[in-house]
């Protein structure tokens, strides 16, 4: 064997090890959560280590969805009322924030790129600069403001805070999308007598669809995973999302890891679906969002 083939085999082996390590690191913990959520409570606290569930059980999921169970002789109530309310809250606030953010960014970024109006650059720079300001910096005055306006623990309040937090990234993303679009397309439409609004809705936005999808995915994922905002602004189940509810399954007596892992697995289903089916848009959005 020549030095070259030895070298390339070495390289191939290195790649294989690298791929396996990366997969183990990224997917391993999720596999473990799934395995835990399917393991019987008694097996979870057994001393013998197991890397897969010995007897697959759905009882943790059943408790989330309404079944009562018996633990140490006591009837354990189902957590369905809380779980379903939090799930609905998560879905509603994340979807509302996504729709609003993407709609505002789609029109706003177009204005920043194509329309000339007084204060254009100043507003854009100021808004994008807030990406560097952590949301936590303004949270305390925001709390007092929300109390004053009666928006604590309301969908409107939570959604508005999400929009203010995720709008700069969406605007930045949509601006790079519009900038990459040739002006000649729009000019051709105007020459044909199409108005500005018609051109924007019928010609520009369909072409910008991949960017809009990317912005929507990023916003949804950010909103879905938010913790500190609802921790402060959603004190009750009226608007409390899954991220705040799930850690509360830690009771005073014991930590129900089976239940928490089952709830966690359900909470990561939407993000996993997005990654599997729309990963292309997600990655392009992350790449565009990072290029400054």
């Amino acid at each position: 064997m020549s030095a070259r083939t030895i070298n390339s085999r070495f390289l191939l082996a290195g790649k294989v090890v690298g791929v396996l390590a990366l997969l183990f690191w990224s997917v391993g913990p999720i596999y473990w959560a799934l395995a835990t959520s399917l393991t019987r409570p008694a097996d979870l606290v057994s001393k013998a280590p197991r890397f897969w569930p010995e007897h697959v059980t759905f009882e943790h999921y059943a408790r989330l969805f309404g079944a009562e169970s018996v633990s140490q002789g006591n009837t354990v109530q189902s957590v369905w009322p809380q779980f379903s309310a939090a799930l609905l809250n998560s879905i509603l606030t994340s979807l509302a924030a996504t729709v609003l953010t993407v709609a505002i960014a789609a029109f706003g970024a177009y204005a920043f790129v194509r329309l000339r109006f007084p204060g254009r650059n100043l507003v854009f720079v100021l808004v994008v600069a807030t990406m560097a300001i952590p949301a936590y910096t303004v949270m305390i005055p925001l709390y007092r403001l929300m109390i004053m306006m009666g928006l604590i623990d309301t969908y409107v309040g939570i959604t508005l805070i999400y929009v203010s937090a995720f709008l700069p990234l969406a605007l930045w993303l949509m601006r790079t999308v519009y900038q990459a679009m040739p002006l000649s397309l729009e000019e051709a439409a105007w020459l044909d007598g199409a108005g500005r609004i018609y051109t924007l809705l019928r010609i520009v936005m369909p072409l910008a669809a991949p960017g809009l999808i990317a912005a929507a995915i990023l916003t949804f994922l950010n909103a879905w995973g938010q913790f500190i905002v609802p921790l402060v602004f959603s004190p009750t189940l009226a608007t409390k999302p899954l991220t705040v509810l799930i850690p509360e399954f830690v009771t005073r007596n014991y930590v129900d890891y089976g239940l928490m892992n089952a709830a966690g697995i359900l909470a990561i289903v939407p993000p996993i679906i997005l990654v599997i089916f729309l990963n292309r848009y997600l990655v392009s959005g992350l790449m565009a969002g990072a290029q400054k």
Partner: protein
Amino acid sequence: MTAQRILAARPAYQFGEAAMGLAFVLPIVVIMGGLVFMPLVTTVIDSFYRVDPMRAGEPFIGLRNYTDLMTDSNVQASWMNTFAYVVMAVVLETAGGLGAALLLNNIRRGRQWLLAATVLPWCLPPVVNAIVWMWIYNPSYGVLNHALISLGLLDAPRVWFNDRGTALFLVTLVHVWRMMPLTAIILLAALQSVPKELYEAAKLDGAGALKSFRLVTLPLISGGLAIALSQSTVFAFNLFDEAWIMGGSGLDTRSVIIQVYMSAFQNLRFSYGMALSLLAMIASLIVSMIYVLRVYRETRLD
């Protein structure tokens, strides 16, 4: 400049166009102004007052909040913890992210799937990540102890969070698990913009893999590296979710943002928390600014 000539030739703004632009931007101005800029100004102003819902009056106290912060031992401990989080997270995310990006850049078959798997942790709610890892770290039944014992690396199960250094490291690891994908993607984008011919030229000049990495790759991805470094710094500075779920209000793992949250919403000292949150914001801005400037300057000399 032609742009200036065009601007001079016609009125500065056409009424219809300007009106439409303002209409499109109005929601942005209202939302960002009301929910970010106004509160930010309030934060600065109120940090010089005593705003305290449990006490009457809001007197001006000058720099009292700031001088109190300097001598508060809890605040000092939380600064030390945040400093440790930032250093460990930035080093691990950059090293791991660069490795993952190089690997992804050199793979042809199944790259989409490996990329999806790599990005996945970033997409999940940080709270769920923290819970999943807390179960992995569990002293009695956790898979980490099981695995280390069966590999013979550990004699008896360890209670990981009993030791401050270990606890900080393990919280960092969860944060790194979530944030490393972002570094990897930023660096992958940078790697893909390096022209292939440069590698061939380096090879012809007799440069080995390591040398061509140092002389070709590194200078050309420095822009992406600066962005990745400042991103990971800002996110590690603002670490809250993982540390709060895993360590709660415990001083061993308390970050500055947890301290802000506790000052404001548990001890109900609003303006004290505001002063601290301002300092945290300024610190993270300065540090990430340093990266960007230094990386740009150093690579320009190359």
